């Protein structure tokens, strides 16, 4: 039986003039079987209380699934002793979503673009490409084990 997901949602008081009113944190085991549930949980809390467009929901689900799969399989190499950490900061204009693994990191500049003619029909290598296409901004930490993706709500 897989270890449970650990979810924490913190909402700032209405009076607090914080740029990020709500923070959603989730800790996930390094198991591909947990990814769908993690995507569902984080997406639900990110869009709670909003009339989000279907397009935003779709983009959020796909990029989160991609980032989690990369963290579980490439970052943590499915090591049961390692965790994947998700943090979403929610503000009225955007969702800022970071996914961090406990691996050594990688250099995103070395990932080849999969839409080159010679690579279009390869069976892998589209994850980071899709993230870049579906979010408004994407950044990595220096170590390369944490990705931060920003999606504007409009």
């Amino acid at each position, binding site marked *: 039986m897989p270890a449970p997901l650990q979810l924490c949602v913190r909402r700032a008081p209405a009076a607090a003039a914080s740029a990020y009113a709500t923070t959603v944190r989730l800790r996930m085991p390094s198991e591909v079987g947990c990814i*769908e549930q993690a995507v569902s949980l984080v997406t639900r809390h990110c869009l709670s209380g909003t009339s989000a467009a279907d397009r935003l929901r779709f983009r959020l*689900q*796909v990029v989160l699934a991609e980032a989690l*799969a990369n963290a579980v399989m490439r970052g943590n190499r499915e090591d049961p002793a390692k965790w994947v950490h998700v943090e979403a900061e929610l503000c009225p204009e955007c969702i800022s979503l970071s996914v961090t693994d406990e691996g050594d990191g990688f250099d995103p500049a070395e990932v080849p673009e999969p839409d080159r003619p010679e690579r*279009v029909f*390869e*069976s892998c290598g589209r994850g980071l490409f*899709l993230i870049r296409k579906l979010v408004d901004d994407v950044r990595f930490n220096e170590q390369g084990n944490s990705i931060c993706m920003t999606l504007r709500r409009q």
Partner: protein
Amino acid sequence: MAFHQSRGPNGVLLVQVEGQLIVGNRQELKDLVNQALEAGERKFVVDFSRTGYIDSSGLGALVSISKRVRELGGELRLSGLNEDLRSLFELTKLDTLFPIADTPEQALAGF
């Protein structure tokens, strides 16, 4: 997440993806199609009318399945992609690899 199989006209195997097609279940779809190929099936429609989202592993699984089907002289078509799902195929240029129909009925009728 589940894959529902049914038989269309002209011996076409219709596989409907219910839920997501992602890293957690892509192998199940590959196994299903490979077993059907071993049993002699050559015509396939994969329908996404009841699908929420697809990740890059799911796209990759479709690519490898399609290659195998073609190697054996068969054909694999896709159907039921909504605007969001279709955009994934367009962004990755995979819309040039698969014949895509609006509905499973249209995909089946074209065989």
